């Protein structure tokens, strides 16, 4: 019923429409910060999926690992910067495991990721003291970000400052990655992802660069999990379920949008920035869908549909340009006009 009310909003009460708009506006800062936090995770996915050409499913596990490590350390009184660094390192460790499974034991990439992800589910339980949820309340601990502080009721300056802090983190990560992938080491990862045969012929140890990329990627995923734990004030062992799909959604939304807008100038920094933007767009659109009254549990279906749509766009676009159906139509047209021409010539001959 609510769904219909949005679609036909103009025909129903103005006040209801205003209500939905206000709710949307109120939720916007929160959606943006959530989008950016997941954007950090998506940038991690970008490194494996786009640069290394490795579909890494470790992230569903390493995301929670990062969050769990942060929550437990904060609760143990460890200073926040150290705890955040540790959430990064915990993710790195998860990436290392997947990397070694793949390069040392020859387990195919996707399966190696799944194995690590599944084992992390147990590991995460253990980190969280055998409970499925750990709270880190902003009332008790000095957190870097918290959803409570981003509530619109706190006034514009507070909200703006909180958002700026997350933007700063994302900016710093993009700058660091821009530097790293411009170095000789970074080049080896790009070459490995682009053409492993060529990389080896240029004396690059492709196994080593695969492992480094997985470590870096999952480190960012862990950091992102740590940020989300602070933002939502708790970490649940199930938070990571389907995280890879959200990450992929952000990567793909950013890629499709970025290449449409930037065209020839879609450089590395822009690609990372658009990946983070993809995260924001994902959460904003998700909130719009949720405002129509769709139950929250449908968010996974939503993310799958989004990824499917954006993955299909480039394919459909190209098949519109060249398809068998189109070829048949063109061919038919041509035969028709040819035979007409012939007919006309034939008439002329008779004359």
């Amino acid at each position, binding site marked *: 019923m609510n769904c219909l009310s949005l679609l036909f909003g103009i025909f129903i009460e103005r006040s209801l429409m205003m209500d939905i708009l206000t709710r949307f506006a109120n939720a916007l800062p929160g959606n943006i910060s959530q989008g950016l936090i997941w954007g950090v995770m998506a940038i991690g996915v970008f490194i494996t999926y786009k640069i290394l050409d490795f579909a890494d499913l470790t992230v569903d596990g390493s995301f929670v690992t990062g969050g769990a490590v942060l929550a437990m350390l904060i609760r143990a009184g460890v200073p926040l910067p150290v705890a955040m660094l540790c959430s990064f390192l915990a993710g790195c460790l998860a990436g290392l495991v997947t990397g070694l499974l793949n390069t040392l034991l020859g387990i195919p990439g996707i399966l190696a990721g799944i194995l690590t992800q599944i084992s992390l589910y147990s590991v995460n339980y253990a980190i969280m003291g055998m409970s499925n949820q750990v709270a880190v309340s902003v009332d008790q601990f000095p957190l870097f970000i918290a959803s409570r502080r981003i509530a619109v009721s706190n006034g514009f300056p507070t909200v703006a400052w909180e958002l700026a802090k997350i933007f700063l983190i994302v900016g710093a990560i993009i700058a660091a990655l821009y530097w790293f992938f411009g170095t*000789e*080491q970074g*080049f080896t990862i790009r070459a490995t992802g682009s*053409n492993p045969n*060529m*990389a*080896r*012929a*240029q*004396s690059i140890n492709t196994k080593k660069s695969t492992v480094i990329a997985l470590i870096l990627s999952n480190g960012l995923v862990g950091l992102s999990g740590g940020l989300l734990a602070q933002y939502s004030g708790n970490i649940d062992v199930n938070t990571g379920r389907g995280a890879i799909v959200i990450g992929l959604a952000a990567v793909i939304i950013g890629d499709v949008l970025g290449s449409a807008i930037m065209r020839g100038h879609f450089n590395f920094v822009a690609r990372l920035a658009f990946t983070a933007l993809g995260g924001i767009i994902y959460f904003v659109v998700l909130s719009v869908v949720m405002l129509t009254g769709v139950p929250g549990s449908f968010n996974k279906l939503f993310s799958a549909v989004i990824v499917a749509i954006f993955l299909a766009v480039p394919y459909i676009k190209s098949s519109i340009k060249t398809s068998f159906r189109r070829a048949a139509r063109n061919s038919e047209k041509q035969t028709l006009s040819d035979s007409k021409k012939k007919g006309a010539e034939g008439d002329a001959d008779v004359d």
Partner: protein
Amino acid sequence: MLTLTDVRKTFNPGTINEKHALNSVSLDLDDGDFVTIIGGNGAGKSTTLNAVAGVWPIDSGSIIINGQNVVGLPEHKRAGFIGRVFQDPMTGTAATMEIQENLALAKRRGQARTLKWGITKKEREEYHELLKTLDLGLEDRMTSKVGLLSGGQRQALTLLMATLKKPDILLLDEHTAALDPKTAAKVLELSDKIIEENHLTAMMVTHNMAAAIKHGNRLVMMNNGVIIYDVKGEEKKHLTVDMLLEKFEEASGSKLENDRMLLSKADAERS
């Protein structure tokens, strides 16, 4: 410079697909030798090159490059002193990276990769001059992705990359086979020029008998994983395609039944 002694390799041992690819291959190349390798399908030409490059470990024998036995080194370690160009133009370059980035990767072949910039301003100028020598207009497209280049352009670039850091051995594995005749001739000419100018030791696999005679100072013919004919110097200069065919029958005891090689014979006769 390069000495192969009794190199053997069997693929899929103990299975129905068992294939004795190399049966005791021995070859001794002097510094500056440019040897062309011919032979029918499955003769072991490319396998010999892959054994030298270290694509997989050999079963027995030794491969000595510049005094060092390299059989224990994996592919990426041997790449430090071996330059390679492959049959498929897609294999030798990274398509999603820029022309200048590909060159920068090649420039660091054999070196430890650090956290210094992957390409410097000075290098860009150097590559610009270097690409000019190819005469393909690539010097004006240095920031283009290599994926946008034609097969011939990619092979020319790969040649440049393989020799940017002077290799002890240059391996050319049918590197013109996927190109049209005109481009193939151009890339061959370029190979000759680069090998001569840098005084490189090179091995070139080819199906084209006329090209095998024309290029290099030495010619090796393989059959069933062994070298059946090895000729150099004056004797090689006076070879003809017919003589090669004769040699093949004499050494292998069978007629040459390889369409591609026979086609290249027909080509040679026409021209």
